[in-house]
């Protein structure tokens, strides 16, 4: 069942890290409904936010792949049905 998954990613403010994160979406050719990147908190950190309209399993795989990219600090997912938070230790 598809749902809207809003994924917030805190990551190093470099184009390389951003490019790797976007690559996870591009590789799967997922429909991204909204996409934004903006400075966030301390210097050198950006917040990337995108909305995926997909099933929970796909959204979870995307999140797991994004969170292991070197330079990604935290990933937070919000869906219309529920709300979970994931932080790196």
């Amino acid at each position: 069942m598809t749902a809207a998954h809003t994924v917030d990613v805190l990551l190093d403010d470099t184009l390389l890290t951003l490019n790797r994160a976007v690559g996870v979406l591009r590789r799967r050719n997922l429909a991204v409904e909204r996409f934004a990147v903006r400075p966030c908190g301390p210097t050198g950190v950006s917040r990337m936010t995108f909305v995926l309209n997909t099933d929970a399993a796909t959204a979870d795989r995307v999140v797991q792949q994004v969170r292991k990219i070197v330079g990604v600090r935290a990933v937070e997912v919000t869906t219309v049905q529920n709300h979970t938070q994931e932080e790196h230790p």
Partner: protein
Amino acid sequence: MSEAQSGAHILCRTLVEAGVDVLFGYPGGAIMPFYHALPEYPGLRHILVRHEQAAAHAADGYARASGRVGVCVATSGPGATNLVTGLATASMDSSPVVAITGQVARPMIGRDAFQETDIIGITLPITKQSYLVQDAAELAGVVREALAVAQAGRPGPVLIDVPKDVQNQKASPASPPGPLSANAERGNGGGSSSIEDGVRRAAALIAAAKRPLMMVGHGVILANAYAEVRALAEKTGMPVITTLLGISAFPEGHPLHLGMPGMHGEVHVNRAIQRADLIVGIGLRFDDRVTGNLAAFAPKAQIVHIDLDRSEIGRNVPTAVGIVGDAAAVTRRLVGAIQARDCAAWRAEIEGCRRPPDASFRGGMSPEAILAAIRDATGGECTIVTDVGQHQMWVAKLFPYRRPNTHITSGGLGTMGFAVPAAMGVHLARPGEPVWAISGDGGFQMNMAEMATMVQEGLTVKLAIFNNGYLGMVRQWQQFFHGKRYSCTPIWSPDYVKLAEAYGIPGYRVQDASELADAVGRANAEPGPALVEFVIEQEANVYPMIPPGGSLSEPIEAAV
């Protein structure tokens, strides 16, 4: 502060300081300052390959055999793009490789300069991390971090792109190594409390299971978790299945060892998976060649999945218990948490499914006979590096590996042409030990120019060619699934004995089993590289076979 050095010298010096002692590479325009500095660092042995792809595979082979980072070097443009297949191979098989590429000078980047290519962009999906070095002052830190990132957590390839003017730029030698960036150690996640909870639940499942199995993969080799895995098997009596990259992680002759699962797994191994009520998977990713049709995979089993990479848990198969952590550490805890038991009835049930050996290879030149000759000549103490195709499956199923990490092959990417160059890296990681590179006639011809590298650099690699005149595995698929239309799979070979002679190495052709022991023994005893061509039956197949996308319950078996 010490005297300023060029970026090229900083690069060499940092590699030496980090303990790197061998580089596989090929010079070219944009990497020339590095090569100009290199002779001043005798601690860095450079192996001049004949194609950059071979440099990446050799670095990969070195990394897999040594447990240390393998380093390859290439120039910009075609030099860098030629590395791509090797980096993708290393990425799929979690091998720590660092690639250093020259790049056009900073002012020329983005102008489509001569031999310019966006190698970082090209390799983004197949590298763990990459660096475009913009200032020579950053180089030392970048090299140290790259080497650490390649090995940290789940290993993988890292690329450092160094513009030519940065190699020439003077900078102060680096400050002492600092701590790694906070997230370079990513992959070791899973706090101790979550591990404890997972171990407790896994132990309860093992205690309750009637038909439990262990499946172990490359992660066990990467973590040196052999003793722990063996202890877990012996304490519980659980039969052990080794995936293609897990082969040699558990002794082949051990009574609990079952064999390889999946597409070319033996019938009793796949039957065991289909009947199991519990699978304890350690350091594997349940890829499609292992599982076949996911919907029909292990329909009765709960799955305990132990892996360093959190993203692998639940990725392909649903897990009852997922434990993120080092295979050795987690398995050790699991051994401590379980009660001793045995699985005698279950093992007897599996034995009842065992089929007699495939007899389709009539005549003397069977894979069994060839591999027995290599085993006998080396006392079974060699490292075997295989290519991709039918011979790869025969070796995986038949060679009696005794020591851990003595089977090296391209698993995830399935890269033909891997064996010959990777074996050069294995030899350098294990000098003095026999290394056999086994290829088919197709894969061998992809990178056979590396014989010249072996001769020039004095690399003692034994080359075995299973010559059936076909791209055999593709032909087998054509036979089974494409109406026997052997489209573009017959493949001509040169006279390999004469070819070896042209390269100045001994070559032997074996057409009859009676000649096997002599030829293999002589090749193995040669002080340098040697080649043995085995002329085998043309249309032999690898049995059994699960059709792609098929269920493990429905193998194609050899006609009796």
